């Protein structure tokens, strides 16, 4: 019997607006989408279209001004900030354009810190394993400043996957890298996505990268205008 896929993320009629000098400014309007475990989704759009804001809402970093978001079976609107933080510990991983590693911690310590925050046991072994998976077992004790951009992003990916999250949010993960390094980082992301059965939400303006996802959503002026399903 085929088990129906588990829905890991869904948002219905989500809107987000802010107060501006000229009155209320709508950043996102009536966004509805969903994603199952292990699926990949690319959110594309021009600069200022609201894609990063949507990523923040989907990951529970902020709450929408209208609509509902469910992440890993939790209704984000019902959770306060600390509860959402605790949800992210085990269920969510992040990869950022600027890596966001703590400069005074080694690669290993950066990965361990995220695991400790999530409350895992055996953090050292898990961190070593994650860094080995991204090909950095020879760089464990190196500081971010001693590594290239591509290597730093690998550490960030190891940090994101080390806790085996249900969903990973990646904000322009190849944006700060050259084409070839970006390519290898993208390969790594999609390989791990498959290996860990982790859902992947990717914000990018790189259509080549977006096309590697199963789903693509484009935002124009805060609204989803096109839905496409790729290979």
């Amino acid at each position, binding site marked *: 019997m085929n088990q129906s896929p588990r829905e890991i993320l869904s948002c219905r009629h989500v809107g987000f607006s802010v107060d501006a000098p000229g009155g209320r400014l709508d950043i996102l309007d009536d966004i509805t989408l969903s994603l199952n475990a292990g699926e990949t989704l690319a959110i594309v759009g021009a600069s200022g279209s609201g894609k990063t804001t949507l990523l923040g809402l989907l990951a529970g970093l902020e709450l929408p001004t209208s609509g509902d978001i469910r992440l890993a079976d939790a209704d984000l609107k019902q959770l306060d900030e600390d509860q959402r933080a*605790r949800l992210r510990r085990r269920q969510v991983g*992040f990869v950022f354009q*600027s890596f966001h590693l703590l400069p005074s911690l080694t690669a290993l310590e950066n990965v361990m810190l995220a695991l400790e925050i999530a409350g895992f046991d055996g953090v050292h072994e898990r961190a070593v394993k994650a860094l080995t998976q991204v090909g950095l077992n020879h760089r464990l004790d190196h500081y971010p400043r001693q590594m290239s951009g591509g290597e730093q992003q690998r550490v960030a990916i190891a940090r994101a996957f080390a806790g085996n999250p249900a969903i990973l949010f990646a904000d322009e993960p190849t944006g700060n890298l050259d084409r070839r390094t970006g390519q290898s980082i993208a390969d790594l992301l999609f390989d791990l996505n498959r290996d860990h059965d982790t859902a992947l939400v990717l914000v990018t303006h790189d259509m080549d990268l977006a096309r590697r996802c199963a789903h693509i959503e484009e935002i124009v002026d805060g609204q989803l205008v096109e839905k496409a399903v790729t290979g």
Partner: protein
Amino acid sequence: MNPLTLSFRLLARQGRSGALAMLVAGLVVATAAMSAVSLFTDRIGRALEREAGEALAADLVVAGRDRLPPEFLVQAERLGLDTGEIILVSTAVFVGDESQLIDVKGVGGGYPLRGQLRIAAEIDGPEDTVSRLPDRGTAWLEPRGLRALDAGIGDTTELGYSDLTITRTLLFEPDRGGGRFLLAPRMMVHIDDLLDSELLGPGARARYRLLVAGSEAAVNDFRNWVQSRLDDNQRLITVADTEDQTGMALTQARRFLGVAALTAVILAAVAVLLSAMRFSLAQRDLVALLKAFGAKGGEVMGALTLMLLWLVLISIVVGGTAGLIAQELIAHILADGPGNNLPPVRFQPLAGAGVFTLLLAAGFALPPLLNLRGVPPMRILNRSLDQRIGISRLLWLLPVGAALAIPVVQLGDARLALIVLGASAALAASLALFGWLAMLVSGQLAARARAAWRFGLAGLKRRRGAGIVQVTALGLGLMALLLLVIVRAEMLEQWRTSLPADAPDHFAVNIQPDQAADVERTLREAGVVNLQVRPMANANLIAINGERPPDDRMAGQVNVSWIDQLPPANEIVAGEFFAPDATGEISLAAMWAERLGVSLGDELNFESGARSFSATVTSIREVDWNSFNVNFFILLTPEAADFLPHQLIASFHLGDADSTLLRELTRTWPNVSVIDIGAIIERVGEIIDRVSQAAQVVFFFTLLAGLVVLLAALEATRDERRHEAALIRTLGADNRMVRRGLLVEYGVMALIAAALATTGAGVTGWFLAAELFEFRYQPSPVLFISGFVVAIVLVVGSGWLGNRSVLNTPPVRILRTGG
């Protein structure tokens, strides 16, 4: 683009930015601290000087063995100074058939120029405080003189050829001095009566003094004028020369306060430097933008410099006002203590504070701003063309120059300033070194810690530079405060209790040799303890190895004693003390020998009356003057008793003996005077207590400046902290975890600062006790534990308050920053 207009625009645009606010706060706090300290120490200083001046009864005294040239008086009056004259002579005074050796003091002019006399209309009558001279034809006599002469108020005394009526008893004269006791009773008369007495002929061995007092400038002018005109028999006596040990203590106290203020200044400079660096960092985009729009580098720099000038002016006004209010508050707080008699505020120190603020800004805020000229316009296109806002090598000359100049301006003494600066730098360097080591250890521990601990300890590692500055600054401030508490609460008490319980608290002087046995028996029978009776004679030192002795106030007429064994509280440091049957030998106190350049084997020649004698130096002694035993610079072999006219001096601890004994003693032997030195001990203790109270207030500013440094350093790293807090929140840390991380970071920093401060204070306290107070100091665990706890609460509390915005940083910020 006009730099002036641009400077105003910059000020208006940046006025509300956190970085500028912090820079202004740094300058304002520094100015306020400096103004308050300058104004307060100026008032305290003048009060102390006034008190010390009272010990001279003047601001400056010219002393001579002959009548001083009249032009000295004329010049002093020409400079607008108040003047007074004194002639001192020892002579026999008669009342009826009774005679007594009396120290006569003829006073004239405006004597006393500083302080007041205390007299009474009858023996044991109520005291009256006056600032006037005895009228012509009258004399004021000490009660013991009256007793010795068996005289009373209204009797007539013969002073040479003058007949004077005794109208008052003399109870106190400000310039008597606490360190030297008069052997003979004092009689004060009008100077013209003394001149008319014909007692001042050749060989009278009178001493003449011209007293002057007035504005500092006029006194200095007179000092400079008269200095080059003094002959070998004349010398200047200043406040620093007063025999009164309290005068010395007060002079030192003022310097001490100046040094204390300097610590606050040094810390404030660090705060200004940190704030300016942070401000400059925030101005890089603006400078790049202005350059890209065509502004010349010089114009931008001119505008930034002018903007800094406006900030300095604002700081002078705001800080100066705050300082004025603060020093008034301090005076109010001390209203029941030394603040009681403070002279009114003088505004001159505010001008000094203004110069100081300008110097501070030029030295510590300008260099980081000037460094902005290196920001390329290309930065607006590519932020990675970033450069750290440090200070280029040449520009370091500015803060270094300012750091050297500020103490000189503030203390007005280049040598002392350099010593303080060097000592502060050494102290700060030691604190920084230990701080660095402690942080290194914390970094190692971070690798083994978990979550909040790892985050907190790693924070220390990440901001090691800023952390060392914070720990050093706070450590210095806390140490200064703790040291003051130690000096006041502990060392003073321990010093007092370190005196043996039976330390002599009374001296009986002027005991004649034929009275000695009876006096001694009376004292013993009354139950006094630790009784020592020692002979004392006056002699003139006339030659050292056949040469005239140096012109020194410790040469000339000296007190000598003799003994057959080394007295208590004395230790031989060179040579050997006399054998019991030795003759013609002399033992000198090390202090006296050093001052007059005398060493073992030297021959000293003395004259006493018509008799002259010589002796060879065979030992040098270190004397514990704090023992309050009777001690002498010069000890002769016992045969001196055979040819030197002398009296005896007894020291004893009154203990449980009846205090009426003292009255009995002087009634039975009217020539004997009893001096209560317990009162002197109390007076010295009181001065130390008052000075340390004032210094505590001054050191409060040091701590305040330390906290400003902490806040400036917190402000400098706030963006970094907010970013980190946002990151770990994104990774799933809740508020509690972020809070704990911050607590760990500040807690460890506080531990390091508190440990360094308490250890430093303990070590310095021990050193001060050993070097200055000459006793072994036992630090009290209670004081150190409470100091430690207070230090931790202060650091963690201020760190916590300064970082509330970090706790409120939303995690979504991480998506909007470029790292």
